[in-house]
């Protein structure tokens, strides 16, 4: 419950950042007279590289070869300038993140005919997440007003996800970890942890954005989830698996929406 409260607090905090920015902006050396208080609505395409990683990091397999798959993400973004150097923004992006990997796994728990067993050896891993990601962020511009950094929380609704480990060679402990009770053979079933995955995520996003032209912007982001990709009561992972990914995105600002109600900002 405490965690949920923290997530909600962080998400709401993002709403306060623009206010703080606005207060700062009025005192900024750059005049706010030129600020055009319009929502900018844009579309964006991009791709993500990443997946879920074990935290603490010591649980990352000692030999791990990831093969990320680049899937196209599609989304829309809304930006509102608060001052000349501060913007706030929100996005809605539909994305699929896929990563395959070869790994040397140690004592991975799984269930076989109602008993818990432990697999160690080499395995192919596959994970993918199809999600609707909704970041809300504050954006700060450098003096050239072309380069920007952004920071804010995100919420993601995970619509489809899978996490499968396909053992290639190794052994199984039936009585506990670090036991060799059975040799893995090629007919061994995959370990499919998909049913134990949670349907939402929340985390923080840090990014850099460069204005390429009047309408085009290039964005680079790094995001990290705060919550385990699996249900809290899952019994297969003794550590958290958190979303971590890098994103490259190109956005195109379609048009600005002038809202009379927002003109009051111009009077400040």
């Amino acid at each position, binding site marked *: 419950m405490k965690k949920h409260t923290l997530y909600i607090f962080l998400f709401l905090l993002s709403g306060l950042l623009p206010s703080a920015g606005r207060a700062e902006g009025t005192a900024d050396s750059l005049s706010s007279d030129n600020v055009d208080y319009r929502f900018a609505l844009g579309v964006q395409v991009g791709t993500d590289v990443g997946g879920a990683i074990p935290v603490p990091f010591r649980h990352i397999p000692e*030999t*791990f*070869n990831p093969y990320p798959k680049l899937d196209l993400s599609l989304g829309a973004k809304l930006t509102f300038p608060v001052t000349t150097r501060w913007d706030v923004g929100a996005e809605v992006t539909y994305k699929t993140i896929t990563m395959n990997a*070869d*790994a*040397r*796994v140690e004592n991975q728990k799984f269930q*076989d*005919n109602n*008993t818990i067993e432990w697999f*160690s*050896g*080499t395995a192919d891993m596959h994970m993918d997440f199809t999600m609707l990601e909704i970041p809300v962020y504050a954006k700060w511009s450098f003096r050239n007003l072309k380069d920007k950094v952004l920071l804010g929380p995100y919420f993601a609704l995970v619509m489809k996800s899978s996490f499968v480990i396909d053992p290639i*060679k*190794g*052994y*199984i402990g*039936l009585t506990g970890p*670090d*036991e*060799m*009770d*059975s*040799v*893995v*053979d090629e*007919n*061994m079933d995959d370990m499919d942890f998909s049913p134990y995955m949670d349907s939402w995520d929340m985390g923080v996003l840090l990014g850099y954005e460069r204005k390429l032209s009047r309408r085009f912007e290039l964005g680079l982001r790094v995001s990290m989830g705060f919550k385990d990709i699996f249900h809290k009561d899952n019994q297969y992972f003794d550590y958290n698996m958190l979303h971590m990914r890098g994103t490259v995105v190109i956005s195109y600002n379609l048009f600005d929406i002038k809202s009379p109600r927002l003109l009051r900002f111009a009077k400040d």
Partner: protein
Amino acid sequence: MKKYSALFLLMSLWLVSCEKVSDLSDEASVVSFQVLSHTPESAVVDTVYMVGEDIAISVRPQEDLFPFTVRAAMTTSPTTHSVLGDYTGSEDLVFSTGTSEINFHLIAESGQPHPYTLSLYPSETGADIKEFTFSGSEETTVYIDPWNALIYVSDPDSSLDADNGYEIKGIKVLASDGAVAEYDDSFTFEDYEDYMEITVSAADGQTTRVWKVYFTELYQIPNSDFESWGKFGNDINNNVMTIDPVPGKGQGWATANNTFVLGAEPFDYQGGKAARLTTRIQDAIVFGDLIAAGSLYTGYFQINVNNLADSRSMTYFGVPYTLRPAALEFDARYVPGDTLKQAVKNGYRYEIQDIEGIDSGHAWIHLIHWDSSKDFAYHGREEDGATLLGSGEIIFDGNNSAYRNWGHYRIDIEYTNYELLPTHVAIVFSSSQKGDEYIGAPGSVMEVDNVQLIY
């Protein structure tokens, strides 16, 4: 620009230096094994033999040798990732008997396990017995235990007569080179505690061992009281719960349990465990639904997904056995299922249909002589290479309510061939007599315990 180039170079180096999973070695081996010390200190350790994945410590048998404790130094190949099992390289090795084995696994970088066995090998004392024979001994079983200077004699055609005992004549002993053996040329065992003594003096005159010869009961298949069950790895029923195949796959009891159906399970009975065999409907994937009888038998099970529609071809009946028992005895009860059904082929798939009748359980024993030029593969039907020497059976007729209560049963074995010696014995219990024809009543239950071969 220079800064970016340096960064790019660093990242490239990092990527190149990442160890590839595909490069991890499958190899792991013991490079050397050395005995550092042992208890009792008076024990004479000669050599350590390393043959493949077996390590044998050669020790001279002596009194009060066991438990024999060894501290050793083992080095493994550089591609060995870890050592798991009863010995990981640092513990004391404790052998409680001369036949004790200590098993461990070397795990290669890739995770590939390599099984190793540590055992003891009796070295020459100079006062050993190599062979013990007597008139007609070729038709008996003689087991020499060099560790404890014991010899066991058993006779498949005769048990120890309480009135007359069991007499052996024309005794001959082959002892160590130059050793002198003192013994009578005949002996009568009055009972199972009675023994004859043979004193063997080594050629050097310093070592003398007194050997004892006993008459013993004959061999029973291990775990015939069905107390031990579990999962025994992918090679045994694909790691599905089954009966303990002790002393090893194809040498003890087995079930046809597999990923698709569990027909044999243990249950608590009279302070221990017994076997419950249940006829079930099995989903055979592309072949449709089949009737699968619960079965328990000597031999092993080898699943073949392509043969799900021919269960007999996956059941290999029989374990090595060279004696001629008179009968098979066991405790059992049988309750037929409600409705007799049959899986009938319709096109490529089987469908379950109700049929007239009531189900019956089945217990049978076959003594087989197998042609040694062929790999043993007996499926309970006429096979090229199999000669049926003797057999017996009981059909547990589902109409007979007497079978619904526990009873003690005996199957007398009728021999039809006395010329050939048995090589294998197949003992089978099935909850549906015609299970191999996919006829049975789902829910038919046969419970079995305490199987014993009677000589």
